[in-house]
């Protein structure tokens, strides 16, 4: 058992090929080097997979880890991090879900689990405090995420268990299938649901009541926690905006700046943005405010469609990212269509961002005559056609006909189609872009390009540039800004706390605040320099994973559209990031990171970060 508080000190290893489940100690030395979720995920995935491992093969692993803040009184830290080699990008993937699952795992006695091998028949993992077993899931295979969850609750006779589950899309290994957690949250990105499906693992269910979590320094922890609670009570965004609207106020905020992805990013001004604004969603959909475990912010909304074709349909959220991907990006101006699409994604278990971006790509191909109505099986995939969005989504989740093609994601679709479509295939490293402009922020241009995940808005953050704190139109100093912001996001995902409280803790650069939190809760003795090294270590290890799998500078890029087509209208008219600008930023960034001109970490960088025990030079330079 570890001497550090906030941990259970052990994790589960579940071998599905052999049907063997064991407990392993989480070694103190590993904790000191990698702390939690993101760090541990990167460490074990790198260490335990071989170069070239097939993402959907028996040798890939699905790794789950909580952070040491999860299950403590620290606010807004409910996350479970899920890690694997992504079928969508072929690189390192981490995705984090809220809800109550992560905390329940700790209360059952485990910091995480490593799932390896592949079962012959569908199974689920049942963790009943210290007793863990594989159970037959044949009767749940093919069932929706909700049906499965409800059935497992009945089977184990406990309504309050916590469940991570895949839907039919994960079973069919749709490349952007997600893992649904507690019904209302998703480890959405990068196809982790497909990895779970490839292992014939339908669900992980937990009852955790017997393990208690301690904090190391109660006095200091209380002081920090109370100050964050006070901030949540008094800060307008956290006490009013998020509980009332979730993150959906971003729709109008981005539109008024002229950076709202619209019709597959052909423009960044959506003339119907008011129709899908936070106010419209509140009026037409939101019924009740909900929250994740131990989160005083409350950004989740239960929705019920009140009228029209989908009247009575119940779903959770949608948040801004979904309003972007399945709304403005597809030219959709009806919140009810977005809610219906959100429902289909949640029940079948696919990422709403990748799904929306993939459909927007198909729509542009259709309007340009590259895909015909016949090829789309009679679906008139024009921007703004809500029925087409729903029909295409239903085909994707069933992976039937044209749906099988769309389920590949934008990168592979464009590779198959050719005809210049790669220019408007909106992804980075294969991961479809989140709803924050590349052209409208020079820092995001670099941040997206170098993100280890690809098109994620959770590595580099847009807010410091959106707020005007940094000049979004200038490339000056953006290499340092990406270093500073990603050092906080990787620590956020390592501790773990939610992006909703990033503002309170600090977005640009690690500070004593980060150090004080982790020292107080866990009993570490880190100083700021040590924490900075840990952040850099984790980011470099993810990077090394990608390099090992064949990525380098060529993959640190952005969609052609954003390098050649200026934003055509609105307040950000004329903005784009030409290749020369991106290259200049990349050169400076690599230098700052201690990487060579091809973006590969130098041998001395690896050594300085203490990664040479697992990263071998031959993995990076063949």
């Amino acid at each position: 058992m570890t001497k550090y508080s906030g941990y259970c000190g052990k994790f589960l290893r579940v071998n599905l090929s052999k049907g063997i489940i064991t407990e392993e100690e989480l070694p103190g030395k590993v904790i000191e080097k990698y702390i939690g979720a993101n760090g541990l995920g990167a460490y074990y995935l790198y260490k335990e997979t071989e170069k070239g491992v097939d993402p959907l093969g028996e040798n890939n692993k699905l790794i789950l880890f909580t952070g040491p803040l999860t299950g403590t009184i620290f606010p807004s830290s409910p996350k479970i991090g899920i890690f694997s080699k992504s079928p969508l990008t072929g690189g390192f993937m981490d995705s984090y879900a809220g809800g109550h699952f992560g905390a329940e795992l700790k209360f059952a006695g485990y910091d995480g689990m490593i799932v390896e091998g592949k079962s012959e028949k569908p199974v689920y993992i049942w963790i009943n405090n210290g007793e863990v077993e594989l159970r037959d899931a044949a009767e749940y295979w093919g069932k929706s995420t909700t049906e499965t969850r409800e059935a497992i609750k009945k089977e184990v006779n406990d309504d309050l268990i916590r469940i991570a589950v895949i839907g039919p899309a994960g079973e069919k290994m749709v490349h952007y299938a997600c893992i649904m957690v507690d019904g209302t949250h998703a480890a959405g990105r990068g196809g982790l649901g497909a990895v779970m499906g490839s292992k014939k693992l339908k669900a992980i269910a937990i009852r955790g009541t017997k393990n208690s979590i301690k904090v190391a320094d109660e006095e200091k922890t209380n002081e920090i926690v109370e100050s964050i609670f006070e901030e949540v009570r008094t800060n307008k965004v956290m006490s009013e905006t998020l509980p009332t609207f979730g993150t959906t106020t971003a729709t109008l905020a981005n539109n008024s700046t002229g950076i709202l992805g619209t019709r597959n990013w052909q423009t960044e001004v959506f003339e119907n943005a008011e129709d899908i604004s936070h106010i419209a969603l509140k009026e037409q959909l939101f019924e009740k405010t909900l929250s994740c475990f131990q989160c005083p912010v409350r950004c989740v909304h239960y929705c019920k469609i009140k009228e029209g074709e989908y009247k009575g349909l119940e779903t959770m959220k949608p948040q801004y990212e979904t309003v972007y991907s399945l709304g403005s990006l597809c030219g959709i101006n009806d919140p009810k269509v977005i809610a219906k699409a959100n429902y289909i994604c949640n029940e079948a278990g696919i990422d709403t961002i990748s799904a929306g971006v993939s459909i927007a790509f198909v729509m542009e191909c259709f309007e340009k005559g590259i895909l015909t109505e016949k090829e789309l099986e009679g679906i008139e995939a024009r921007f703004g056609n809500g029925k087409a969005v729903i029909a295409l989504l239903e085909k994707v989740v069933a992976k039937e006909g044209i749906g099988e093609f769309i389920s590949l994601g934008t990168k592979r679709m464009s590779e198959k189609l050719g005809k210049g479509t790669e220019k408007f295939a909106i992804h980075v490293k294969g991961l479809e872009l989140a709803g924050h402009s590349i052209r409208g922020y020079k820092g995001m241009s670099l941040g997206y390009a170098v993100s280890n995940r690809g098109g994620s808005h959770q590595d580099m953050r847009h807010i410091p540039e959106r707020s005007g704190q940094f000049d979004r139109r200038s490339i000056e100093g953006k290499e340092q800004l990406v270093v500073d912001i990603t050092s906080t996001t990787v620590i956020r995902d390592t501790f773990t706390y939610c992006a909703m409280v990033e503002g309170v803790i600090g977005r640009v650069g690690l500070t004593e605040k980060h150090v004080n939190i982790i020292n107080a809760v866990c009993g570490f003795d880190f100083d700021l320099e040590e924490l900075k090294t840990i952040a850099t270590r984790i980011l470099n290890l993810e990077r090394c994973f990608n390099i090992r799998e064949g990525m380098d500078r060529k993959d640190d890029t952005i969609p052609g559209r954003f390098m050649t087509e200026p934003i055509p209208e609105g307040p950000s008219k004329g903005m784009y990031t030409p290749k020369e600008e991106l290259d200049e930023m990349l050169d400076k960034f690599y230098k700052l990171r201690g990487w060579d001109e091809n973006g590969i970490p130098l041998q001395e960088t690896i050594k300085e970060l203490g990664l040479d025990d697992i990263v071998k030079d031959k993995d990076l330079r063949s």
Partner: protein
Amino acid sequence: MKRIKVNETKCAGCRVCESFCAYNHEKVINPSLSRITIINPGILEQKPIAVVCRQCEKPKCAEACPTGALKFSDEKQMVVFNENECINCGACAKACPYGAITMHFEKRIPLKCDLCGGDPTCVKHCTAGAITLEEIPDEIEIKKKRFEIS
């Protein structure tokens, strides 16, 4: 008498109350050691229901307690628990018709809301404002009195 009331329309189901309750009383975090529990039934967990001691004027827990470790205190106007008299039998938890008492899984003593001595931590940390400490009488006893049900 003072009682904890939960406005379930406001409750977001975050269970901050459970974490702080356990931490305040037991110095550890574990919802199963909390005196208040938020039950989130239903497929989307959209209707959280709180289970917490209602400080009955005529408490079934006290009736069932063989040693008098639990009783309604006229002075404090709440149901009080005296650990020294507890024989860890669990009769109180079985008897409470509201499910408000559970047993500590290690110490085997009842987890019974003590209103944190008058300043409940659950009330303090509920940013939704769903949990309040109210000065209200036992409505069940009032109704029984009026309709002469003894």
